[in-house]
């Protein structure tokens, strides 16, 4: 095994993920569906949808995260005022240009008012398709929010099951949970490796690998990550004198790949972030032994991560962020949010004051999924990194 062969293995895996990332017309989903008559695909928007239920109903859950900088917006802009974020424009563009035709249904998880209203727009623009607003509970009491969520899970299972003709039995759901637990384990290993040796896992590669999970069947995605994890330590990568940063605010509209590259070139190793957050919204394994519905309910109400669109019941988001910064040994925090993103931007003052109090350096900037100019961000991130290297603070 030479370094060169391992590197070329890594390259092959990453280019497979890159091709999926560039597939804004969901051709890979079309191909997957083409392999058997009964195959169906259900699109879901950020952040979190219970993919296990869709999988157990025999459908492919497909993450819809917007068109990034790869999609020309022809009609999408005529649906939204200038002060609304970019993601819904590219999603509507996909819908009206037929790129989502291969999807058999859509879930719009509750996250903000834009996504919420977009669910109604889809009901009109794609009339006849299954479109469901998934009201994730903000009350985390298992008797209250938990029970309500359970009825939501069953409703989705019934609706998707009716499309596929496959009833979601407890046994099937158990099987799906087990598969997704393996995926959680693989993602966890990837996160750990990046945390320990960030020079081995560049942010763009890590990002592309996570994104691939939004298009691939779950077992294939797990295998992709595992192969990467096996190859990359032997690919001859060497550490650079970069600072370690943690990123918050990018949980919905995704930053363009070039922006992630810019951050790295500016001297930042990203050691924790909230990109593609739905893929690790419940980080640990779900219970595989008891009632599978309860496992999903408890997973969401008790073990899901904190983010701006979820009510911070314990009132600890500031301290939690500070502890995480320490745990991952980040030198500083980048608060990067999409322009006009109410949840992310309203969260920022709270996060900033916690970081301030703890003496943790941070800087903040806005982006859009189609940002094309990185000069200002490169300078800002570069200055931030330099200041930390020189003085230990920004």
């Amino acid at each position, binding site marked *: 095994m030479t370094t060169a062969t391992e590197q070329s293995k890594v390259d092959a895996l990453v280019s497979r993920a890159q091709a999926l990332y560039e597939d804004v017309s969901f051709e890979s989903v079309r191909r997957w569906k083409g392999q058997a008559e009964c195959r169906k695909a259900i699109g879901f928007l950020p952040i979190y949808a219970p993919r296990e239920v869709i999988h157990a109903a025999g459908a492919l859950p497909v993450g819809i995260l917007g068109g990034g900088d790869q999609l020309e917006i022809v009609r999408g802009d*005529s*649906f*939204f*005022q200038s*002060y*609304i974020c970019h993601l*819904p424009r590219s999603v509507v563009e996909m819908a009206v240009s037929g790129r989502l035709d291969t999807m058999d249904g859509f879930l*719009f998880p*509750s*996250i*903000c*008012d*834009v996504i*919420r*209203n*977009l*669910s*109604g*727009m889809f*009901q*009109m*623009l794609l009339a006849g398709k299954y479109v*469901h*607003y998934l*009201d994730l*509970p*903000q*009350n985390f*009491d298992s*008797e*209250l*929010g938990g*029970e*309500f969520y359970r*009825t939501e899970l069953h409703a989705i299972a019934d609706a998707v099951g009716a499309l596929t003709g496959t009833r979601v039995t407890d046994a099937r759901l158990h099987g799906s949970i087990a598969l997704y637990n393996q995926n959680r384990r693989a993602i966890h290993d990837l996160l750990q490796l990046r945390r320990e040796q960030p020079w081995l896992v560049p942010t763009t590669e890590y990002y592309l690998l996570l994104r691939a999970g939004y298009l691939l069947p779950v077992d294939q995605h797990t295998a992709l990550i595992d192969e990467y994890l096996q190859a990359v330590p032997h690919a001859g990568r060497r550490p650079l004198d970069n600072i370690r940063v943690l990123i918050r605010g990018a949980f919905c509209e995704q930053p363009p790949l070039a922006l992630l590259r810019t951050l790295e070139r500016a001297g930042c190793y990203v050691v924790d972030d909230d990109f593609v957050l739905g893929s690790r919204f419940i980080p640990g394994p779900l219970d595989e032994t008891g009632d599978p519905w309860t496992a999903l309910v408890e997973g969401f109400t008790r073990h899901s991560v904190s983010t*701006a*669109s979820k*009510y*911070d*019941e314990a*009132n600890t988001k500031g301290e939690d962020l500070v502890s995480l910064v320490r745990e991952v040994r980040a030198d500083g925090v980048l608060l990067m*949010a999409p*322009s*006009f*993103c*109410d*949840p992310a*931007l*309203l*969260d*920022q*003052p*709270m996060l*900033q*004051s916690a970081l301030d109090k703890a003496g943790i350096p941070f800087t903040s900037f*806005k982006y859009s999924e189609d940002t094309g100019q990185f000069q200002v961000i490169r300078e800002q991130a570069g200055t931030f990194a330099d200041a930390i290297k020189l003085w230990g603070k920004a």
Partner: protein
Amino acid sequence: MTTQVIKDQSQERQKQMLADYFDSLAHAKENGRKVVYTFVPGNLTELIANFDLLPVLPEINALQNGMRGRTGDFIHAAEKSGHSEDVCTYVKADIGMLKAGNLGPTGQPLPKPDMLLLSYTGCFTFLKWFELLRKEYADCPVVMLHVPYQGDGHVTPQMRKYVADQIRDKVIPALETLSGRKFDPDKLKRDLKRSSAAEDDLVWVLESARHKPSPIDAYFGGVYYIGPIFTAFRGTQDAVDYYQLLRGEIEERIRLGLGPVTPEGNLSEEKYRIVTEGPPNWTSFREFWRMFYSEGAVVVASTYTKVGGLYDRGFRHDPANPIETLADYCMGCYTNLSLPERINLIESYMNEYQADGLLINSVKSCNSFSAGQLLILREIEKRTGKPGGFIESDLVDPRYFSAANIKNRLESYFQMIEARRGRA
């Protein structure tokens, strides 16, 4: 002359109610009264009153401050302290007011909250707003009431149960602990009966706009008519009396064949009948209103006057099912409706009120209202064949009210209606 007197009476009455309310807030602490902050849509006013607690509604403070020209500075202060330009200005106006000493719209001090009742109907920003306020008030307790959205166009039994259970198991016990009082179901029933009586009269007033000419303006005038019922007064005798008085006044206007009252007297000629979607602008409220009445445009129905409930579609607080009715109320507010249902509602207003067109005032602050409005516009035009107009402003940020621009657009819009009529 008679009309003038009646008008003055109802307006005076509302003014007095508001003055008394802000006065009771200013003296709440010295009188040993506790205060619950909560939001307008789907508020639990009758329940808060059940424990002799006082509600504070931050959106009302923001809009009242907006009308008094104070919000520009507040927003500026909030942005200087780290709040983004991009987010809802109600929140920033509130935070700015707090930083400036928390004097309310009347200039009297506002009491600190003893509890934040986070009943978040139809808007995610509410959630962030109270998370932010919790920090400002030394971690004041928050009670979450998650109100599900009518994503599929209706309220399911599970949704109703979820909200009712939260009210019973979380909200009521928390209010009991805060107030030291037991929940009084009989008082709640009594108050809900009064709510329902006032709601009957409100609906009568709103529907009076079906007359030609309409005796009311259902947007600019409408915001005054909904004031008491959407805020701290629902369930009180004051509210019942106010709406009776108001109804009498409108009955008299119909009898005399009068159009709506404007700040410059009665409107003499109704030229255009308009349905509006979206909140008004508060910082230039009078100027905005003048742009309508100076052209003879009357708003005959508005969605904004439904943010605190769709009473005109039959909902009444029901004393026979006190908790479930509160749950239904929470879920039934306008911004908690799915987009297709909002469109259906607007379409029915266009027909029932014989409107000439739909005008959307799209406010930058409010994604809950604004995201999707361009589709609403196109769909209504398609379904009714009537012209749609679209203007942009903000609620309380004076930087986003461009008077010349809005006036131009409105004038062209009214001309377009005229031109279509010519062709018809």
